[in-house]
Each structure stands twice: as C-alpha cells, then as structure tokens.
C-alpha cells in the first residue's frame, strides 16, 4: 500500500489578472522509504503541489479537484486541527529559502524544540532540548552553536538546522522544496548526501522539488517532469533518463550542460512557457515542440503507458 496517493489534483489561484490554473490533473503515488522528484521550470506548479500536500496554500489558492490520500486518509477532508496534528508529525517540510525559513528573533534550538513540544505537549522543555541535541548531532551542527540566532549561521548550517527540524518528530514523509538552491556546489553535495543517508536510516519517504534536473537525478527513485501545471512524464529514474519519452523531457535533458559528452549537444528549447491564466486548449508544449502536429494544438493529450513503470502525457504514441 502506498503511503501517499494523489489523484487528479487541480489547484488554482485567484489573481487580479484572472484565474490561474497552477496545477491541473496531477496524479502520482509514493511508497514508504522511496523518494520522488518533481522537476520543472519556475511557475510550473511544483511548489504549489508541495504546499497543497501540507495544506498550506496561500489564501487565494484553492484545490479545485482531486484527492490526496495519506495513509488512506484524504487530507483535503480533514479539519484544521486534524491537519495541524499531521503536519510535521507525519509530513514535514524542508523549505526553499532556508535563509528565511528560520525566525530571526528566536534561537535556533528553541525553534526546533518548539516543533517537538507542539506535538508532544507533555514532554518537558529539558527533554525536548535533549532531543534537539541529538538531532543537531545527527546533522552535524556543533553543540556550541546550538543557542545561536539564525543570522549567525552560514547558509549550509541553516539548511542543516532546517533538516534537523524536519526530522524532529520522526515524520513519515518529508517534502524538500529546492533544499539546496541557494547553496554552493560543495555544500549542496554534502547536504544531499546527508539527506540520502538520513532517508535510508529512518526509512523516510521524500518528495524532492527542484528546477535542477541533475539534483533530482542524483537523489530520487521516481521522477515526475512538470510543465505548465501538468505532469508530463512520470516514471522511475532509470526509465525517464535512459529513455525520455515526452519531447519536453528530452529537451530539458539536452539543454543541460554536463561535464562529459560532446560540447555541441546543448540544444535550447525555443520560446517561452504558456500563460496559465489562459492555457492553450491542446497540448501545452506544442508551440515549442519540434514534432508537433496540427492536432496537438486542439486536442489535449492523454496519459500513455510507455513502459512498466513509465508513462507520458503526449500524442506521440511511440517509445
């Protein structure tokens, strides 16, 4: 039984310029102890999905369709207080901007302890602090830095503290939204390695959200490629990268510079992403797609199984 099952999720925002369909018809599932990565460009809806899983959409955002089944409970049907008890205890989050995810006027260890105490009110302050100590050891923050304020930390240390905080209540699922975007490569590498180790150690399920295809390729078992609010390709890492099926996935991979291979291979995707306030009727990628036919413009594509654990949203039926 899957830990998390998302069916046909659609999310929209009311904006001054009109109704923005940020996520449309996204389905996926995640087993215990596995990791799933969402890749896409900015504005493709990947962060929105993460926030919807936490039940933290901004006030102008709303889930319009679909179900989010976590341990067989539909999170969208839960009351506020039930949802609150699931947050962090069952599902925790590592945020995009680690720089700003810590409250500047409170000490770091207090902020971690707060998460523990919120869900274990009977636990005393000293016991909570003991747990915090253990967590900080786990992520490699020296003990004498525990009582610092966030602004005294470097970027990498802040991200470590956030990871410690995410682990505080031993959640089943951690959503990591661009966890290393602001960090340098070497620190990023260390953080990713640690995350992987911790995931294995605690048998965590993880959802990785990133714009960087190489990070997701490095960390995740399954991969979902997102484009303009839709999931366009979904499958195991090996399948998706070895035999990318959707033209967008192929384009994304070939536009990414690597350390090996021939230099001339970098081919950019022409054009810009469509406007999500008035999305095109047919396939959303057809304007940029090298193999688009006239029917692509008018008919929305359907999901197509292309392998045992691999499917794509494209009119092209061949693998």
């Amino acid at each position, binding site marked *: 039984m899957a830990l998390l099952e998302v069916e046909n999720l659609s999310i929209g925002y009311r904006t001054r310029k009109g109704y923005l369909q940020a996520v449309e018809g996204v389905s996926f599932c995640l087993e215990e102890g596995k990791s799933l990565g969402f890749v896409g460009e900015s504005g493709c809806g990947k962060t929105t999905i993460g926030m919807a899983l936490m039940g933290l959409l901004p006030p102008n955002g709303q889930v319009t369709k679909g179900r989010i089944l976590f341990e067989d409970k539909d999170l969208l049907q839960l009351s506020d207080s039930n949802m*609150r008890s699931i947050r962090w205890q069952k599902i925790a989050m590592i945020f995009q901007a680690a720089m700003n*995810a810590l409250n500047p006027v409170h000490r770091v260890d207090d902020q971690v302890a707060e998460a523990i105490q919120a869900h274990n009110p009977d636990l005393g302050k000293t016991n909570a602090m003991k747990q915090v100590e253990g967590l900080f050891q786990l992520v490699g923050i020296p003990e004498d830095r525990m009582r610092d304020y966030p602004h005294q930390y470097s970027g990498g240390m802040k991200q470590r503290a956030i990871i410690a905080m995410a682990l505080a209540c031993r959640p089943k699922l951690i959503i990591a939204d661009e966890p290393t975007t602001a960090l340098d490569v070497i620190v990023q590498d260390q953080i990713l390695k640690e995350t992987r180790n911790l995931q294995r150690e605690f048998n965590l399920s993880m959802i990785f959200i990133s714009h960087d295809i190489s990070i997701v390729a490095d960390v995740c078992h399954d991969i979902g490629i997102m484009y303009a609010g839709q999931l366009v390709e979904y499958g195991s890492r090996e399948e998706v990268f070895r035999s990318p099926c959707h033209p967008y996935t192929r384009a994304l991979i070939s536009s990414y510079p690597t350390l090996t291979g021939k230099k001339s291979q970098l081919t950019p995707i022409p054009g810009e992403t469509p406007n999500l306030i008035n999305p095109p009727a047919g396939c959303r990628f057809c304007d940029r797609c090298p193999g688009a036919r006239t029917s692509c413009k008018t008919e929305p594509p359907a999901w197509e199984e292309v392998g045992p654990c691999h499917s794509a949203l494209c009119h092209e039926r061949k693998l």
Partner: protein
Amino acid sequence: MELRRYIFRRIIQIIIIFFVILTVLFLLFRLAPGDPVSRMIDPDMTPEDAELLISQLGLDQPLWTQYVYYVKNFFTGNFGNSFHYGQPVVRIIGDRLPNTILLFTSSIILSALVGIFLGKIASWHKGKKTDTWMTIGALVTHTVFLPWLALIMIWVFAYKLDWFPITGMISEEVWLDPDVGLLAKFLDVLHHMVLPLGTLFLIHFGSYLLIMRSSMLETLKEDYIITARAKGLEEKVIRDHHAAPNAALPVVTSVGLSLAFSINGGALTETVFTWPGIGRELVFSVSHNDYPLAQASFLLIAFVVLVSNLVVDVLYAYLDPRIRY
C-alpha cells in the same frame, strides 16, 4: 558589550547635536531684530539690577565673550530669572519637568502597547469587519485635531458629565490638607491626568495601530511564518510568538522617529488642560515675552527628545538580536 560602546557613541552624538542647538539659539538671539539686552532684561527691573544682570550675562562684551558666558551660564544652570514668576528659571523648570515626563512617557507607553495589541488583532482579521472598523477608528482618532479633541474632552467629560476636573494637575484642597495620605494625593493626580492622558492616547494609539497592522501583514508573508504553520503550531502561537515580536520592531522605530512630533502634541495638551509642564511653560512664556524662560524650556525639551531617542534606540537593539552595534 558592543551595546555599551554604541550607547557611548550615541551620547557623544547627542552632546554634539545639543551644542549645535545651543549655538544656533545663541546666534538667533543676537541676530534677531531688536535689542538683545532689552529681551533679557525684565522691564520691571530697577536700573541697578539690570546693570548687574547685563554684566552677569556679558551682554556688554563682544559676541565671542558673550558666547563663552552663555555656555558657562548654561552649564552652571544660570538661565536668569523669569520675568513673569520673578524666580530663577532653573527652579521653575525643575518643578515642571517631572510633570511633563509623567504625562508624556505614560501616554507614549500606553498608546504604544494598546496600538501594538490592537494592530495585531486587526491584521489577524484582515479584510473582515473588525479590521475595517479598527483601521477607520485609528485613522479618525489619529487625524483628529488635538487641541480641539482636548476641548471636546473637557466639554463632554468635565463640563457636561462632570466626571473629571476641568484643568490642572492637583486639587489645592487635597494637597494643602496635612491629613490626606500619599495614596489619596496620588489618586488626585491620577484623576486630573485622565483627560490629558486620554487625549494624547487617542491621538497616538492610532498611528501605532496602523504601523503594527501593516508591519504584521508584512511579517505574516515571511517564510518563517509558513515554517511555523508547517510545524503544526496553533494559530495563536504563530501570531503571538512568531509574528508579533518581529512585527513590533518597526513600531519601536516609529516611536523614536515620531517623538519630536509627539512633543508638539504634549505641549498643546498641557496648554489646554493647564497641566503644569514644560510645554505649557514654553507656550506661556512666549506669549508673555518671558524670554529666559522660553529659551530654557526649549533647550530642555530638545534635551528630553534627544535622550528619549537614545532610549528607544537602545530598546530596539535589545529587542532585535540581529542588531549588534
């Protein structure tokens, strides 16, 4: 210990600024049209006394020597005699200062606390009725013309309803009666203070409310608020523990920046309620051409504003761990 160094630096700054004000005042006094001597000399004085005073102030000396006399007199507390009261200015000012500080600080603290509290509530109910009415109420009380509000307060609460005394700070019968205890005296002062304090409070709390409200709305958009929500904290904890302390910081700054403006209101309030403070003394002395008293009250008020600014800045540094000077 960096903080101590910062305070030291600020004190030096204050001294410099104060010297500039002192000097500008001196120059204005000498450069203004009319005879500086006659301005400093009480028209009712005997010629001998006037003679003495002139030599004491150095008014018969060249400008530079006069300046030296002026500064020396200032530091020895010799501001001359008030024409109106016929007493040394220092004594009058010394009498009035505590009254001003009492009214002024209590009104600032009260209105800041209430403003912060209500601003927090208003922002929390953004867009709802509570918020709309609080905002409008704050806007109206904040922009109402202070002396007029004071007059209306007197008219309604002192004249029509007769709940509070119309003017003054103490009732003579209470203070002259040797049998009355300290508590009763204190209550008497409090009784007199309600209306002026209420007036100042009404004028000030609105601006703090509005600043707190917008600062809080800003803070609520910060990432660490989302973190707090994601942690599954109660909304009340998020509001009071995570958002409010951060949001209150700009209010502290604005208290500091608006101090000078608040003291205008303080002077007006003292005047209308005949509260025996420095502000009223300044207004009174200016309209009675009592120059020595006017000058000294002005300098003292400037000094009070400078020092309170320092207090506010230090408070800010204390509240915000990011600030380390």
